[in-house]
């Protein structure tokens, strides 16, 4: 369960970063609206999975690190993993703030109208945008570290940390 959730979310986050990047670069057009609605829908989906995953992490904790792992690495891993969980929750929420304070209504996966909770407004909208950008760059930085660390375990330290996430 934990491993399936990891790879499923890795795939969704990869797609989401790409869609968000492409849509942000587009000039206002019907295509941009479609990409943005996809981005919002995927964001809400990721948020739901992140909640499920955070709950699952407390039920099914990660296995112990390989014997002989230095303390700084254990602490570093704990901090970065919890920060990743925080970002998986905070990024969609900040994106929701951006979408909710915009004037455009949207439907989750073009089916369910998203509730319009906050009034449209420039100030909150801009706060949301700044937050969303800040969080996405934090995520990109931390994901890079996460991937480099996994590769280091596999190729340099030659332990089973990456393998057990893949095969169990």
């Amino acid at each position, binding site marked *: 369960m934990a491993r399936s959730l990891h790879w499923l979310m890795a795939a969704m986050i990869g797609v989401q970063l790409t869609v968000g990047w492409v849509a942000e670069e587009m000039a206002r057009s019907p295509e941009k609206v479609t990409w943005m609605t996809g981005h919002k829908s995927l964001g809400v989906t990721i948020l739901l999975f992140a909640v499920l995953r955070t709950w699952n992490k407390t039920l099914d904790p990660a296995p112990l690190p390989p014997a002989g792992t230095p303390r700084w690495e254990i602490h570093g891993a704990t901090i970065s993993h919890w920060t990743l969980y925080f970002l998986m929750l905070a990024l969609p929420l900040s994106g929701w703030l951006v979408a909710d304070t915009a004037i455009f*209504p949207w439907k989750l996966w*073009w089916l369910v109208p998203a509730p319009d909770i906050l009034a449209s407004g*420039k100030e909150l909208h801009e706060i949301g945008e700044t937050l969303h950008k800040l969080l996405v760059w934090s995520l990109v930085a931390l994901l890079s570290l996460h991937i480099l660390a996994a590769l280091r375990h596999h190729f340099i330290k030659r332990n089973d940390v990456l393998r057990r996430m893949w095969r169990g």
Partner: protein
Amino acid sequence: MRLRCLLLAWGLMSATAVLAQWHSLVDESELTFIVSFEGLEIAGRFAGFQVYTNFDPNDPSTAQLEVQVDLRSADMNDAEVNQEIAGPVWFDVPGQPQASFRSQHIFTLADGFVAHGTLELKGVRRPVQVPFSWVGDDSRSVMTGELAIDRRHFEIGIGEWADDEVIGYPVTVKFRVTLVP
């Protein structure tokens, strides 16, 4: 020559006098438009518009009605979007800053009135029918109504916005106008 000038001036004055019998109060009047955006409603408003009429609910047959809309006042509650809709793809405000509706044929219906007239918008003139209710007395009246127009008829939203994939064709125009003599 002088007589003709006088006659012309008299004619203009009487025409204005007829139309100026009632005029709208800007702060107590609303003109909104609603369109579908990915199947959900999105609305905007024109703050700057004026209505002039000599309408008499007891005898609408002689009534004339004129509505002037300042398209520069189109507001969707987002500065960037407002700039966008003023452009040539949407209202083309620099090319045609005013829209108008003129009617000289107002009829009584079972539940109100209907004005048959011409809507001029973005350089296109088309006949439209505007149903409305009229409530009030000699010192103050409120005119309320709504009509549906098709944005394609007025070339509102052209180019890549020409199809209805994101923004629908029907536009509901609603108004609530407070008029005083």
